[in-house]
């Protein structure tokens, strides 16, 4: 049987729509992979084969539907979304006992678009963690090398998509959690403009920063899933002919880069120039400041959300998460409000400076390659601790401002780990990101690589 899992959604659509491939055939193949490879990566919190096959057969019985753009495509989403059938476990339990959420409109829109949910994917405890560790379910393993982390907090989303266990996954991003794991696992991770995808039906971490996002193996697939997940009938153009002016930051995003990431960044600049885009140096304003204020918002809001839950369910909180949340209890209300108030002026200043000279900017997605789990365990070592705390350095400013940003896989390191680059655009600029990213994606696909776990 053809290895359907190696194909993209865009490639599979004609065969699904014509009936050459049935939803049942595709789902059975994906389930077999998820059940055989998923456990070695610890990518799933649950796999639901009976329900998935039932949905697939029902779709086949009704027949392909041209109005359902993702008809017959198996997916699995981060375990912080509620569906009509289940409440989320949030990375701490099979079902969080206090979760009482309405079904996520994103999941409903994807179901209406014809997708088949095969289970739920693993995540960091309450979506709080940048590495992929989880004290309750075990660490999620990087498909390129299981000794290395996936990044987090949408760890299972990135691992499952990279290994070909699902075609797409909805994750959430509160500072890095879609883009950074996507970069470390070699997939596309899009955090759209703040508000594009609703937070309704999603267990929150930080109300003013949380933003659902989409992980896929290609940019075209990503646009297709994002448009379907929004459920507004939008068709975001992914245009290979579009030529853009791309800003190259001269500071902040160039800090702390590992040599291989710095080298890949320079290669990416040349790749985009060769593709016909105009690359211009741009100044970055207030990167560190945005990161600081992001921290104030996230800790205050997480503290407000989890204060009572932490008392009621202390067993759900590993010590690092507990410390993070408790620190927010000491933030003064006026400081929290000012961190919210500063967002508008900072957005204006960023658009008047950095983004006034270009259509979007190119940055590294993470300053380092994926970290080894053995080093993460040894966080008492100052170098390791710094590498962990800086994982979100490049991704947090876009979250604070609410700008769309995506990580696109570009190349592989000498040690066999993927390196992704980040594209950030002004509000609503998803089409710019998808179009510019095509040149980076072409370089990645030209390497013709699959992770060892696949």
């Amino acid at each position: 049987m053809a290895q359907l899992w190696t194909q993209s959604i865009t490639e599979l659509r004609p065969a699904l729509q014509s009936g050459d491939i049935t939803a049942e055939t595709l789902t059975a193949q994906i389930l077999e992979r998820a059940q055989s490879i998923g456990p070695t990566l610890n990518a799933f919190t649950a796999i639901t084969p009976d329900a998935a096959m039932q949905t697939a057969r029902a779709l086949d019985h009704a027949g392909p539907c041209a109005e359902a753009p993702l008809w017959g495509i198996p997916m699995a989403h981060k375990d912080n979304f509620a569906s009509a059938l289940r409440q989320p476990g949030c990375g701490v339990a099979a079902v969080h006992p206090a979760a009482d959420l309405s079904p996520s409109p994103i999941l409903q829109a994807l179901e209406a678009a014809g997708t088949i949910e095969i289970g739920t994917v693993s995540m960091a405890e309450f979506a709080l963690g940048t590495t992929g560790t989880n004290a309750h379910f075990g660490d999620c393993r990087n498909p390129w090398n299981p000794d290395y982390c996936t990044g987090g907090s949408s760890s299972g989303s990135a691992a499952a998509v990279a290994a070909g266990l699902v075609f797409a996954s909805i994750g959430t991003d509160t500072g890095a959690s879609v883009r950074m794991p996507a970069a470390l696992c070699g997939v596309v991770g899009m955090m759209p403009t703040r508000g594009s995808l609703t937070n309704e039906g999603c267990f929150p971490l930080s109300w003013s920063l949380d933003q659902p996002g989409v992980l896929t193996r290609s940019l075209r697939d990503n646009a297709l899933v994002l448009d379907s997940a929004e459920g507004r009938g939008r068709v975001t153009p992914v245009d290979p002919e579009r030529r853009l002016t791309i800003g190259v930051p001269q500071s902040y995003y160039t800090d702390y880069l590992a040599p291989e990431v710095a080298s890949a960044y320079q290669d990416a600049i040349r790749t985009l120039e060769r593709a016909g885009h105009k690359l211009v140096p741009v100044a970055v304003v207030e990167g560190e400041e945005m990161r600081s204020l992001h921290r104030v918002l996230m800790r205050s809001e997480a503290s407000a959300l989890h204060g009572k839950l932490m008392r009621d369910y202390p067993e759900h909180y590993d010590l690092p998460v507990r410390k993070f949340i408790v620190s927010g209890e000491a933030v003064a209300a006026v400081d929290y409000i000012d961190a919210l108030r500063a967002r508008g002026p900072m957005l204006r200043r960023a658009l008047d400076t950095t983004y006034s000279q270009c259509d979007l900017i190119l940055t590294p997605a993470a300053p380092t390659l994926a970290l080894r789990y053995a080093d993460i365990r040894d966080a008492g070592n100052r170098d390791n601790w710094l590498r962990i705390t800086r994982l979100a350095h490049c991704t947090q400013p876009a979250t604070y401002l609410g700008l769309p940003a995506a990580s696109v896989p570009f190349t592989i390191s000498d040690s066999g780990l993927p390196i992704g680059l980040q594209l950030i655009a002004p509000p609503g600029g998803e089409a710019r990101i998808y179009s510019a990213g095509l040149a980076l994606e072409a370089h990645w696909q030209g390497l013709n690589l699959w992770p060892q776990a696949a």
Partner: protein
Amino acid sequence: MDKTQDILKQLLQQRVPAFAEMPANVLDDTAAEAAMLTRQVQPYRQGLGISDAPFDYETQLQRLRVA
């Protein structure tokens, strides 16, 4: 431990009784992180204007959309 950290440590001990029972070094670390958060907002307060309300940010995000 500086004065700010000491004050915040006492505040955390009062506000989160279960946490107050944790080892002293954990409390100290957390107080240090809380002090860092407090210091991080101070420099930006001076530049904020009367119209810089949180809802203004959401309005701008919509108004400044591009294609």
